[in-house]
């Protein structure tokens, strides 16, 4: 709980940080889609190397990615157990009593684990290197063509950026409330079921109350400064694509096409 890093912006000066958010978003989408083609280990290897290069360029520490991955470990363990019980193909790795573990169960879990890891790496590349404000601008610009078919581009962008903006706040708030309740003798780790439910309630109720309070405060503050979603707004920052931005998108597109190729023809 202490150090949730998923979705957090890391202020740093790197070529990736300076890139156009639109280019980063498009590149991320390409590579994310690429992951969903069954391109096998070679394909994932290629993506891994490419994403690692971006991570190194962005000066992100591997430990940062690892911490973002940690909360997923529980899910993966759970998945491994289910796979172990259900999948009965491949070689038998070992047998305990009437239960045997098959190689395919492990392989298939590993496969998902690798995809998950890649997904987290890719999204972290975007969120850790893009200021929430730039992200909004980027999303809004990308959605602009869709305003013709009545997609509220600006509102969606604002929504996403506010959500992103509130993640660290809510985490902080959760920790604070946890501490306050722990001071009152709440034990979030041990205890009987009834105590556990009470402990979780003592956390969730204040969290909801404060989240609503924050939302209301923010809404009032925005309104007080004359914000009206439908109005035409001017911009202080104009996004501009450079050569390196096109290069990034081109690279991501190549990966996507490559993966489709591998999945189709190999």
């Amino acid at each position, binding site marked *: 709980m202490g150090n949730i890093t998923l979705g957090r912006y*890391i202020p740093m000066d790197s070529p990736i940080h300076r890139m156009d958010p639109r280019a980063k978003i498009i590149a991320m989408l390409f590579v994310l889609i690429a992951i969903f083609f069954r391109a096998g280990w070679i394909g994932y290897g290629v993506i891994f190397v490419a994403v690692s290069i971006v991570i190194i360029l962005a000066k992100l520490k591997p430990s940062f990615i690892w911490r973002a991955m940690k909360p997923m470990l529980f899910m993966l363990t759970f998945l491994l157990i289910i796979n172990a019980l259900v999948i009965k193909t491949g070689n038998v790795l070992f047998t305990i009593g009437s239960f045997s573990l098959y190689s395919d169960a492990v392989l298939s879990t590993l496969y998902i684990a690798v995809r998950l890891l890649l997904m987290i790496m890719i999204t972290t590349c975007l969120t850790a290197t893009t200021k929430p404000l730039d992200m909004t601008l980027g999303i809004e610009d990308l959605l602009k063509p869709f305003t013709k078919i009545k997609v509220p581009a600006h509102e969606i962008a604002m929504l996403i950026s506010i959500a992103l903006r509130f993640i660290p706040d809510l985490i902080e*708030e959760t920790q604070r*409330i946890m*501490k306050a309740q722990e*001071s009152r*003798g709440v034990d979030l780790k041990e205890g009987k079921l009834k105590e556990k439910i009470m402990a979780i309630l003592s956390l969730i109720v204040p969290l909801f109350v*404060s989240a609503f309070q924050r939302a209301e405060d923010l809404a009032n503050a925005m309104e007080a400064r004359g914000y009206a979603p439908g109005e035409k707004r001017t911009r202080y920052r104009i996004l501009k694509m450079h050569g390196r931005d096109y290069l990034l998108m081109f690279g991501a597109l190549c990966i996507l096409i490559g993966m489709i190729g591998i999945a189709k023809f190999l």
Partner: protein
Amino acid sequence: MQISFQHVSYIYNEGTPYEYQALNDVNLDIQEGKITAIIGQTGSGKSTLVQHLNALLLPKTGEIHILDRVIKASENPKQLKALRGDVGLVFQFPEYQLFEETVLKDVAFGPKNFNVSEKDAIKRAKEALQMVGIKEDSYEKSPLELSGGQKRRVAIAGILAMDPKVLVLDEPTAGLDPVGTKEMMQLFKKLNSDYNKTILIVTHDMEQVFKYCDNVVVMQDGSVKVHTSVDEFFRDAESCEELNILPPAVIRMKKMLNENGFHIEGEIKDITALAKAIAKEVKHG
């Protein structure tokens, strides 16, 4: 017995780009049975310091001795629940921790967690609510219906109901009205003198420190800058001003008088004492 910090350091978000050393080799002995004020500029580490007292934060290095227990980096938090009952910590803005359906239930929540029976917990809750000045007709209200100041009182009552030996209050009166502030401070003073509770108060209000506290700890950039008795601390205005602290009005008055030909010496605790001292000087010419 004393509460003592020995070479305590604490780092937030260690190993991330947000790393921040909030406490830096803190050594501090706090007298039991006294009221100790902890002061210092925002961000000087006061809240971080007090959260070590009931092991909400574990030190990165060093150890804390409190009520025959030792808190250190390797301590297993499992044995610490009893400590949480003995050291009651009221957070800065504690009103956010209220969650039960009624005020009474919320206050009884703490003692119940420490295996006090339902009946006794309610009894204690009523006593605590009375102490903080919440009227009986509010007991069955939802805590969310109360005003900010009332919420604060209920939250404080929630800790008082646990009947801790050491009471730690992080800016308990911030945002209360003057009358409420005075009532609260008098309550803490009473808990100290009548029930012999050790009390630590984090505050920005020098008048409170001067009037109600015995000792004072000044924090600066995560270290203890000064630790002395309140009388000593406010003896002369200069030492306060060196630390960028505005002394209480009475002390400033005394200083101004002395700068303009008066010779007022010794302890001046309040405005009456000052008036008497002035009268004496005037009489003697």
